[in-house]
């Protein structure tokens, strides 16, 4: 086993343990904090793969913003223990195991049935420039559609938060 393999296994173990923490910890705030660790672990795997830009955006958007909002909401709305805030939490245990097992199976199936092209070329130096050309060139319609979708979501959230207009 090479050193780089060791780095990957360390990162993967870190991510998986943190993800297990999200699912298994009884305290919901601890779960949310474990989610941050999971995101950071995934970002580490991106760095390992040479995708620094994606990795940094992963930290900025997921670990830095989304999970903070999630923790924020959890702290404001719920009591600490999952069994208190969600009494039916334990009931669907087997069903949940079944569905997540099925999902993992499908995921593994699609991963193993895809032939991954390995490039032997030099490491991409200017990844951010390439991503920019892709987003603004080949995939511009998908990019703009996602932007409009997010805008619609923002407007919807504002309307929901403001409530009905007084006449």
């Amino acid at each position, binding site marked *: 086993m090479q050193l780089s393999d060791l780095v990957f296994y360390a990162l993967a173990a870190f991510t998986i343990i943190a993800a297990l923490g999200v699912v298994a910890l009884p*305290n919901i705030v601890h779960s949310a904090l474990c989610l941050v660790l999971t995101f950071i672990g995934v970002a580490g795997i991106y760095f390992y793969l040479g995708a620094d830009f994606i990795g*940094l955006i992963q930290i*900025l958007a997921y*670990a830095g913003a989304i999970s*903070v909002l999630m923790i924020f909401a959890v*702290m*404001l709305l719920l009591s600490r223990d999952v069994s208190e805030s969600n009494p039916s939490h334990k009931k669907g245990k087997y069903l949940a195991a079944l569905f997540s097992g099925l999902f993992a199976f499908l995921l593994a199936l699609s991963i193993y049935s895809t032939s991954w092209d390995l490039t032997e070329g030099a490491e991409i*130096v200017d990844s*951010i420039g390439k991503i920019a050309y892709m987003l603004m060139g080949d995939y511009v319609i998908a990019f703009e559609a996602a932007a409009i979708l997010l805008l619609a979501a923002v407007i919807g959230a504002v309307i929901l938060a403001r409530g009905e207009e007084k006449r």
Partner: protein
Amino acid sequence: MKGAETFFVDLARAIVNGLENMGMSALGAEIILLIIKFACIAGIVTVNIIILIWLERKISGFIQLRLGPNRLGPWGVFQTIADAIKLLTKEDIIPSQTDKIIFRTAPIVFIIISLMLYVVLPFGDGMAIVDLNLGVLYFISVGSLGTIALLMAGWGSNNKWSLLGAMRSVAQMISYEIPLVFSLLAVVMIAGSLNMSDIVNAQDKIWFVFLQPVAFITYFIAATAELNRGPFDMPEAEQELTAGAYTEYSGMRWALFFLAEYTNLFAVSALTAIMFFGGFKGPFLPSWLWLPIKAYIIMLVFFWLKWTLPRIRMDHLMAFSWKVLIPVTLANLVVTGCVLHFLK
């Protein structure tokens, strides 16, 4: 003068060469050099903070027509050292109803994050610890993790004032992150790079503060808010929240938060100098002296603002970010993009 300019770079090379001559592999020598660099950063940060705290107390005293610390040593320069010893030897009090793990790790996470910011800062010509291609993005994304540490402190303390303070700081930091990033983006657009050394080199002829005055003003306001400093220090408003997220902390844990705040302050001031004031470039003096000089001048402005302006109300603070700063920065981005397009 030539020797002074490259003194640290030469020293680093000499260490690597010496280690390799002693029969160490190139990788091993590099790793040891990296560890030395990190140790240097930790040392610089600690010494720097002792000076900064004394300076802030002296300057606040000057602004408020007081004397400030004046008993220990000439002009009270040893006051911070005495305070540090007091904090180190204080009893470590952990309230019984706290969430122990979160309460204990929060200050450590906070200080680690603020130390991580220094990794990409070029302290002189070729003197960044890691000259990352995406340096600016790294600084912003690592900096954004600081909110989590504050949330951990606020929630782990199990105290309503702490939680209120943490929530205020999170709302504030997330809102002001957007204008902050947009202001920096305008600079990045002109420099055409996210690498900090490249950005400094792009300011050879003219500082970006003259090309991007609007971005500089919005950046400076947003940075003050990101640092939770006055007039935006609602999260720790002493009069209403006692000390926000830090209420339950005492001794060294509290000192770590304090340390991290000043660490952040210096890092952000250095970033301001790099992005808008030509970084390590300057006449006569070696490059590694120019960045601290510029950062210190910017920090004096931060001190001056804090001790001059009264605190802003929380709702005004949020409204100001979303209704004024973000539209202004967006308009500035559009104008910058158009000008760059037509100049090409």
